């Protein structure tokens, strides 16, 4: 009896995948663990490994086909095995093309493209296992140093703390050598996906933007107090606090925590905040689920773990699926303000600038204070400026009286 390769389930809410390409062909020998095909889920392009060894006897689905999870895609057996019985038995049950009434499917149908979810490569582009100590991995993640740029001096070439320390003096990111002549660069798969999705978002979604400043002195004080009580590994960032504040505000503004799906606006019951993370060659959005119900420390730890996985190429599909609203933060780069492109199929995205110490005029007198600016980009088909402005006022309620973050 031949072994059946099936469409793998790669995320908790994955219902189907599109077979993009067959890497191996009928008649070829396959060893267990070999990549046989590439599939695209609505979030990522992933390689399919064969769970079996033998000859790839029969490819059951053509590239481009949408296949439900666990449905057969190929048969692997011995050279002389008779697979006609299996083929005959399964001939009546046509290889399904997928009729799943999922939220995502509806979105796909209405927007006319089933393949354009937020796609991120998971296994492709991930280098072979890098030997690195847990400490060195943590430090590299914290310092934003790509692991494949490091040379290990430990046993067997293991990257250890020392290698990071020597790297610290000259951060890899600034080491880009001068280009001597024009260079044609093949964009990474991630870059290609971003290109496609951003063009789609900017061309099909009528964006409008609302910017507001927040008096964040109290927020900064609260953070300092929290961090004084927390171990080094658990330090809270401004971003964590904004995630919580945004999630709480979205409870009051379900229309902004939504997705336009054809004729309907689907307002989500859950508040799942996507946080844009810079990774090598692009960016990903990691998802903090039910952020409105979680403690700041939980939010912070979850995001840290997901960011670490995203940057080390170990992102899990559940890390990047299911966001209902996104936040993009350039606060660490002394950015005054910026405006982000909506992350489809969401309705809105919040862009955070840095907190600056500024002269603030209050009741006719000038005094020093701390201000941070944020801009919300909103799909005008779903919402209007007035609602966005009220959302920003609600956000101010939490950011300027941050004790509310601890109450709600």
């Amino acid at each position, binding site marked *: 009896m031949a072994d059946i390769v099936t469409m793998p389930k790669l995320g908790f809410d994955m219902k189907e995948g599109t077979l993009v390409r067959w890497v191996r062909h009928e008649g070829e020998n396959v060893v267990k663990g070999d990549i046989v095909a590439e599939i695209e889920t609505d979030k990522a392009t992933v390689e399919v490994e064969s769970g079996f060894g033998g000859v790839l006897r029969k490819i059951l689905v053509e590239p481009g086909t949408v296949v439900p999870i666990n449905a057969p895609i190929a048969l692997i057996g011995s050279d002389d095995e008779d697979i006609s019985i299996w083929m005959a038995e399964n001939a009546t049950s046509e290889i399904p093309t997928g009729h799943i009434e999922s939220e995502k499917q509806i979105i796909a149908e209405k927007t006319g493209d089933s393949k354009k979810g937020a796609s991120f490569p998971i296994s492709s582009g991930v280098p072979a296992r890098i030997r690195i*100590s*847990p*400490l*060195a*991995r*943590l430090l590299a993640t914290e310092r934003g140093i790509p692991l494949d740029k490091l040379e290990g001096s*430990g*046993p067997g070439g*293991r990257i*250890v*703390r020392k290698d990071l320390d020597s790297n610290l003096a000259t951060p890899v990111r600034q080491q880009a050598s001068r280009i001597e002549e024009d260079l044609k660069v093949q964009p990474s798969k991630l870059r290609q996906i971003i290109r496609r999705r951003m063009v789609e978002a900017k061309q099909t979604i009528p964006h409008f933007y609302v910017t507001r400043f927040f008096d964040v002195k109290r927020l900064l004080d609260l953070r300092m107090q929290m961090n004084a009580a927390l171990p080094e*590994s658990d330090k809270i960032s401004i971003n964590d606090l904004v995630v919580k504040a945004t999630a709480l505000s979205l409870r009051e503004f379900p229309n902004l925590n939504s997705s336009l799906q054809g004729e309907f606006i689907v307002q989500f019951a859950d508040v799942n905040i996507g946080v844009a993370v810079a990774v090598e060659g692009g960016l990903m959005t990691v998802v903090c689920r039910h952020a409105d119900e979680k403690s700041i420390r939980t939010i912070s730890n979850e995001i840290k773990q997901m960011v670490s996985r995203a940057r080390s190429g170990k992102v899990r599909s559940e890390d990047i699926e299911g966001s209902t609203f996104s936040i993009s933060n350039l606060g660490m780069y002394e950015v005054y303000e910026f405006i982000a492109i909506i992350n489809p199929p969401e309705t809105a995205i919040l862009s955070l600038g840095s907190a600056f110490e500024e002269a603030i005029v209050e009741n006719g007198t000038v005094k020093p204070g701390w201000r941070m600016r944020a801009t919300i980009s909103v799909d005008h088909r779903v919402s209007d400026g007035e609602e966005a402005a009220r959302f920003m006022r609600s956000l101010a309620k939490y950011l300027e009286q941050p004790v509310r973050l601890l109450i709600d």
Partner: protein
Amino acid sequence: MTKITMREAISQALWEEMEKDPSVFILGEEVGVWGGTYAVTKGFYDHFGADRVKDTPIAESVIVGAAIGAALTGVRPVAELMTINFAFSAMDHIVNQAAKLHYMFGGQFVLPLVIRVVSGGGRQLGATHSQTPDVVFAHFPGLKVVTPGTPEDAKGLLKTAIRSNDPVLFIEHATMYQVRGDVPEGDYTIPIGISKVQRTGKDVTIISYSKGLELSLLAADELAKDGIEAEVLDLRTLRPLDMEPVISSFKKTNRAVVIEEGWKSFGVGAEICARIYEEAFDYVDAPIKRVAQKEVPLPYNKNLEQSALPQVADIVAAVKEVL
């Protein structure tokens, strides 16, 4: 501070506690007229008399069983077992009775019992008299297992053990009675269950206890000659095990070697490694090494015995491997 031997420190602790509290008494093989196999109770019989320094039959189950019975009545027995190897004859009394009576009787009884045992190899006493099975006893909740490595700690911890209402197995190392160290003047105690940094350093954490501490400190001296600053952590108590100083030290050095005289399999090193990996995984910069006894019954032959026991050179080599 005065410099005294481990033997004197233990002897002083017993003497002072017996002077202070008339309910403290000693029982064991040859502890009275003979003064103890390791001469810890020399002179006690003449001073405190036969009622408080009791020679027993050569039957460890009798010694521990009688001590448990006495402790249940409210007195404070200090039972001496000639070696920890003989504690196996009293195993049921130690792990099924002593360790559990307080629990089994719902807290109605306390057991102010100390069992002093001599552990460890290196004296050419053969495979059945030279074991270091400390970890076996540390396995059981309900029993405190105290394992001092310096005269100061031995005296302070033994006094705490005698005053404690819990059963304590107090482990002395057979080759350490002559070790000298500074001991504070007068009455003092050291709480059970607190690990201690015995030497500070920044490059690697060496974790040990009892005889392993002596070896680790010597190894740290050796390493210092090569410019390696080892921090030496003394567990002092195997149960309850105080990991806080170990974790703090490890977060500083990111590298560790654990030394124990017993066998490596399922040992103290295994426990310490596991806890570091659980509690400080992101601080690990190299696999933690264990130095322990070769997995053989300890030979009688002097050279073979020494080659089976962990040596200073083994610790130095292990440290260099993790650096």
